[in-house]
């Protein structure tokens, strides 16, 4: 048709006042029709209101006037501030998100088997590199060694039994360290584990600045988790020490992981996950700046781990809102480089939404989560296995989670278009709603003096959200298939993974052999240096010898438990004086 060749005449003046008047009239008419249907279902249209999981009110349908007040530069284009639509001009067109399944169980060589296996199944990172997302066991997280009485029955469960430099050899020997990215998933033992990895790299002759990977620095978890080894201020200090070290010596290393996923698992809703992740990042960023670091130098190495849960569109809006809010926050801190304002996301599909009942249903849930994360534009992904609520993944369930990602990447064609939901009236409107609600919550944290001083507030908020969720299920106001709806007595049998007790015994034998075989005087000297460095650090006389002293101690065969004992002694909780 000839007239359509003249774009000026055919383009709708979507946001001009007269047109918006017309769409408002359209909505009034639609509302009448909708209300009639509602009445037929016995619903009072005057009080009918739906909400997102975060409690944000949503409409049954959206119109152009719902987005007319959003400044267009707030939405912008992929690769432009405030990065609502994505970090870079290209999204998945030339390289999809990285497959980053969490791995770790048993002895280091058992974890290595799984690493090699999944790699052979096509697990792919960026630019041909492999990402190994490795979780340490809770014995390591606690900072004790496997022969500690508290470790019994826990060694290599829910994480790998890696406690010293020699375990790093068992885990990584034969792999090209510069061609891979290692995420060290630790609890409070971040620095001792980092020291083992650095010592191991040195032993292999690999310069530290060529290492790629992540440290968690999750000390701020003390706000919402039961376990907390260090008081909030000591946690901030330890995190900043590592960030400062990497800033100088390992500029490619990802120093801090902002763990929204952990908040979500503890009960946080989307708005809380955004607000508290930004609040934690802001608090740590200010602490870095107080040490003289420039935002453009350290902020590019901050990353996020974000949950993707059941409220499909709110979870997508959450990711877009987070990108926008973090970019603005970093700009206000003085960041100017795009990478210093980027939210690089490792998606972890929600674990708490999964059920032990009818476990294969979890494959459907995680597929929706993964699709949502992909539509939101994530950088890397771990998809929870369908046996998540039963055990750590079997080889089969682990592979299935990888295949799930690969099917979305290879078969759906969604990777061709960046931010495919951008511009949708609902999605843009909800993105702005999530951001506005998160800003309000962030302001409350700021009024309390920032994240490290707002633990009680954060905990209370997250806990009340967790409670509301379960109360709704118990009152049948929220349904979970297999829990309070479509319950069946049939038990879906799935194979469960079990870590053998023999691995625990071997781990204990190894650590005792290590203590017997190592050069005693050298170890003692190295530990004395660690003690001095940590004592000075704790006294506020930081001479930045803490990490180098720990690396030297790792060379002298010190264990994670031994190094953590020093940190706990000087920086842990003490009875009030």
């Amino acid at each position, binding site marked *: 048709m000839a007239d359509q060749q003249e774009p000026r005449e055919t383009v709708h003046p979507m946001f001009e006042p007269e047109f918006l008047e017309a769409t408002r009239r359209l909505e009034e008419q639609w509302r009448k029709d909708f209300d009639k249907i509602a009445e037929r279902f016995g619903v009072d249209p005057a009080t009918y209101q739906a909400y997102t999981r975060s409690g944000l009110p949503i409409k049954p349908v959206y119109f152009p006037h719902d987005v007319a007040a959003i400044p267009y530069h707030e939405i912008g284009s992929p690769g432009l501030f405030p990065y609502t639509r994505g970090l870079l001009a290209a999204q998945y067109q030339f390289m999809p998100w990285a497959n980053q399944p969490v791995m770790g169980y048993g002895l280091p060589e058992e974890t290595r088997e799984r690493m090699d296996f999944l790699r052979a199944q096509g697990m792919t990172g960026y630019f041909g590199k492999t990402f190994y997302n490795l979780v340490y066991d*809770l*014995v390591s*997280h*606690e900072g*004790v060694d496997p022969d500690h*009485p*508290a470790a*019994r*029955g*826990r060694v290599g*469960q*829910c994480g790998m039994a890696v406690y010293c430099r020699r375990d790093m050899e068992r885990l990584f020997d034969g792999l090209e360290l510069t061609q891979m990215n290692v995420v060290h998933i630790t*609890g409070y033992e971040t620095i001792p584990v980092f020291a083992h990895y650095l010592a191991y790299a040195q032993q292999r002759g690999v310069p530290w600045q060529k290492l790629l990977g992540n440290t968690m620095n999750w000390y701020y*978890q003390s706000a919402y*988790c*039961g*376990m907390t*080894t260090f008081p909030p201020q000591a946690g901030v200090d330890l995190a900043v020490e590592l960030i400062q070290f990497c800033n100088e010596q390992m500029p490619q290393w990802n120093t801090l992981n902002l763990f929204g996923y*952990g908040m979500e*698992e*503890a*009960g946080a809703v989307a708005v809380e996950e955004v607000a508290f992740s930004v609040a934690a990042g802001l608090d740590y960023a200010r602490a870095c700046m107080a040490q003289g670091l420039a935002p453009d130098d350290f902020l590019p190495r901050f990353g996020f781990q974000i949950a993707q849960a059941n409220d499909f569109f709110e979870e997508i809006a959450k990711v877009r809102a987070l990108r926008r809010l973090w970019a603005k926050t970093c700009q206000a801190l003085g960041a100017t480089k795009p990478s210093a304002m980027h939210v690089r996301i490792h998606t972890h599909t929600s674990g*708490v939404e999964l*059920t*032990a*009942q009818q476990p294969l249903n979890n494959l459907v849930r995680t597929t929706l989560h993964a699709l949502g994360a992909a539509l939101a534009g994530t950088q890397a992904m771990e998809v929870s296995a369908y046996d998540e*609520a*039963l*055990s750590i993944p079997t080889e089969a369930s682990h592979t299935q989670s990888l295949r799930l990602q690969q099917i979305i990447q290879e078969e759906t064609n969604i990777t061709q278009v960046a931010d495919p939901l951008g511009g949708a009236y609902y999605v843009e409107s909800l993105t702005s709603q999530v951001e506005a609600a998160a800003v309000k919550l962030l302001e409350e944290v700021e009024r309390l003096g920032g994240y490290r001083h707002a633990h009680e507030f954060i905990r209370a908020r997250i*806990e009340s959200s*967790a*409670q509301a969720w*379960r109360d709704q299920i*118990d009152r049948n106001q929220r349904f*979970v298939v*297999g*829990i309070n709806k479509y319950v069946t007595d049939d038990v879906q049998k799935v194979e*469960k993974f*079990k*870590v053998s007790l023999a691995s625990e015994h071997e781990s204990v034998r190894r650590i005792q052999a290590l203590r017997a075989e190592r050069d005693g005087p050298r170890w003692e000297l190295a530990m004395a240096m660690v003690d001095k460095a940590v004592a000075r650090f704790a006294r506020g006389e930081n001479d930045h010898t803490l990490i180098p002293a720990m690396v030297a101690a790792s060379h002298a065969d010190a264990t994670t438990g031994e190094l953590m004992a020093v940190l706990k002694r000087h920086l842990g909780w003490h009875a009030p004086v």
Partner: protein
Amino acid sequence: MAEHKIRVLLCKTTMESHDRGVRFLATKLRDAGMEVIYLNFLEPSEVVETAIEEDVDVVGLSSSVQGHVAVLEDVTSQLQTRGRDDVLILVGGVIPEEDVEPLRAMGVSGVFGPGSYVNDIVQFIREKVSARI
């Protein structure tokens, strides 16, 4: 006669961060009129000490990451040695089916897996504890 207020010690190792369920349970047991003591412990002996000091009727261990069999072995045998095997022992969280029998054999009365209802736990405690008093 004044009604006995049931005293419950809920506990979880400091190693584990999965405390969403047990903290929810703590709130609900309190709402149901029980006294709840909450403990993050490192070694099982701390559970036993606290249970005796606080003179509790019930000990509930939460575990989502294994290790519960070892902890409960120690807790049940130490309570027995100290003459307090009258304490009702419960465990909840991710508890594999194959652990249930061994747990019962060592004196664990209730096992509550993923998705369990708080009301069932409240009822279980009330019935068992009143039978013991």
